[in-house]
């Protein structure tokens, strides 16, 4: 059996591969090593990131390249922007995407716009790795899914991997990319294992992946919701309904062709996005298909998203907040004239 490693380890390997190849790659963020300047730790890390994703990097690359920062997101994200503009290739870790409120200016007004405002006379090869997603009992300020915000900003690329192999190949691409990339890591995926190639490989940013082929309907799902969609597809298959599951993998740029071709084949579309329901990736993809694929459709486009509320703390409520296979099946039953779908 091929090598299986976790989503977290795949990310760790991607950083390691690129740091070995290019000394201008540095990692900075809160507790990315942890325990800075403590004699008894030396070059050992205390944490290796709050979730341990960057564990061990400081031992190999040293504290000049694995930089623990103060808890001051504007300070270090802004520093990463200009380090990128002046010849470095930084990876800034924004521990939770919810903390963007503390450094949105540095991302939106500086990093995303310098190249354009300077007439193309600068490039910003910066990756902002950030954790997102509900289901971790982390409540309203540590559980959001905010990739829609960044997708709306010109000058930013947005990547949302769903598997360990995609995470590694896409992160290497992101670090080697000459533009600013915000890289979303779902915190509930870190321990998920999958087959991951050894060594250096890239997956192009802007190329969707068909995670399951099918002819009867298309489910476009983002991040960990790919797994929710695959679970729903398995149940549908038992009823003889074959769903195609499309994972865009990046939201900016968005692989429009793969989505449109799939809808052309299946004539039905469900989009699963755990962001809040307004102005999110689902509405964006829905608009794309309504505009460029209207004639392919035999039924209305359906979306399965979180409700228009903050992420609740109580497990009883948070479980209601997230998309589930059952919620997907419920909307599929509206698209396919087969009452048995809902009773699966």
């Amino acid at each position, binding site marked *: 059996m091929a090598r299986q490693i976790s989503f977290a380890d795949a990310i760790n390997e991607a950083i390691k591969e690129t740091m070995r190849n290019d000394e201008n790659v540095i990692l900075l963020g809160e507790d990315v090593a942890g325990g800075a300047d403590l004699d008894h730790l030396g070059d050992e890390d205390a944490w290796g990131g709050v979730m341990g994703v960057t564990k061990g990097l400081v031992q190999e690359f040293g504290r000049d390249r694995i930089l623990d920062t103060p808890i001051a997101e504007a300070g270090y994200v802004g520093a990463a922007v200009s380090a990128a503009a002046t*010849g470095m290739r930084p990876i800034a870790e924004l521990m939770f995407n919810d903390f963007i409120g503390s450094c949105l200016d540095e991302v939106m007004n500086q990093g995303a716009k310098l*190249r354009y405002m300077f007439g193309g006379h600068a490039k910003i090869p910066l990756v902002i790795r950030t954790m997102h997603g509900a289901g971790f009992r982390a409540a309203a300020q540590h559980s959001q899914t905010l990739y829609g915000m960044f997708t709306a900003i010109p000058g930013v690329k947005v990547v949302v991997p769903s598997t360990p192999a995609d995470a590694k190949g896409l992160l290497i691409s992101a670090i080697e990319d000459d533009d600013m990339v915000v890289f979303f890591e779902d915190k509930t995926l870190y321990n998920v294992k999958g087959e991951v190639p050894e060594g250096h490989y890239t997956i192009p940013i802007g190329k969707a992946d068909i995670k399951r082929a099918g002819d009867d309907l298309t489910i476009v799902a983002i991040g960990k919701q790919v797994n929710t969609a695959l679970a729903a597809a398995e149940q549908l298959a038992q009823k003889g309904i074959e769903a195609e599951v499309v994972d865009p993998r990046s939201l900016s740029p968005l692989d429009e062709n793969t989505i449109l071709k799939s809808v052309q084949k299946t004539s039905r579309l469900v989009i699963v996005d755990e962001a809040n329901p307004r102005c999110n990736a689902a509405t964006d993809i829905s608009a794309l298909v309504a505009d460029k694929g209207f004639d392919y459709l035999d039924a209305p486009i359906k979306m399965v998203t979180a409700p228009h509320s903050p992420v609740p703390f109580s497990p009883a409520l948070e479980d209601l907040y997230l998309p589930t296979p059952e919620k997907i099946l419920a909307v599929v039953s509206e698209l396919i004239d087969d009452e048995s779908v809902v009773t699966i």
Partner: protein
Amino acid sequence: MRVSEVQQEALTAEKAKWMYQKMVEIRRFEDQVHETFSTGTIPGFVHLYAGEEAVAVGVCSHLDDKDYITSTHRGHGHCIAKGCDLKGMMAEIYGKATGLCKGKGGSMHIADVSKGMLGANGIVGGGFPLATGAGLSAKLRKTGGVAVCFFGDGANNHGTFHEGINQAAIWNLPVIFVAENNGYGESTPFEYASSCKSIADRAAGYNIPGETVDGKDTMAVYEAAQRAVERARNGEGPSLIECVTYRNYGHFEGDAQTYKTSEEREQHLNELDAIIRFREYLLSNNHASEDDLHSIDENVREAVADAVEFAEKSPMPEADQLTTDVYVNYKPGGEE
């Protein structure tokens, strides 16, 4: 070590004349933009640097192209002092295709990264983290360069002031934070908005040297900057210099400046004026003759007139420029 203990290097006549020329270029350029703006030829809005020349020039006279500066919405003076081309700057302010940023940035975003000028910046307080990052980059790449963050008294109350300076201090980065305290953040007095006697006092909170100088005394700025830049180059970390200065025009063009008194304006435009004072300094120290300075004045007048002519005759950007330079590489519909 205190900043004042660093050895001083004497100013040469050649350097002194260069500094005078840059100060006159800034003044003439800004007076010209002021005049032209009133005719409606320049789109948008502009914030003029006239009156504060001693700060940009006193500091940038210690820098070269490997050194970085971050600037503010009032950035024309920093651009000129850091060596940006006057024609390219003027064309940028006119929104022309020949501008330093192809007309896509305008007055508030003029930049020339090849000169180490990391852009004027429309966001108050935007420069602190950027200068810190440029200093980090210079340190890690071992270029020997430093980064200077010019900021106004308004920005000294912004959260990024704290985050940027603290980070530069803990990492011992080669960064010089230069406050241009012109007395007013937009129309609001410094004393009202800042709970400190001086911006320099705040340096103590970061364990870095801080000093206040007369920002209209070119040599006072020059000497303070020399100490701070040498300190940064020697790996001794960041410093903060507060330059007390005055802007001759309003916050933006069109500002009626009712918050200023006519007495203070009169005094700043005449007896306290930095160029008048530096001119006297050069003459009395035999760094330049009246003829030298006169010919600099004339050359600058001509250079600014040429810049205006260049800007006026330059074409507007073509329509296809609307969506270029957003990314290095981006396929809007995804990969094939």
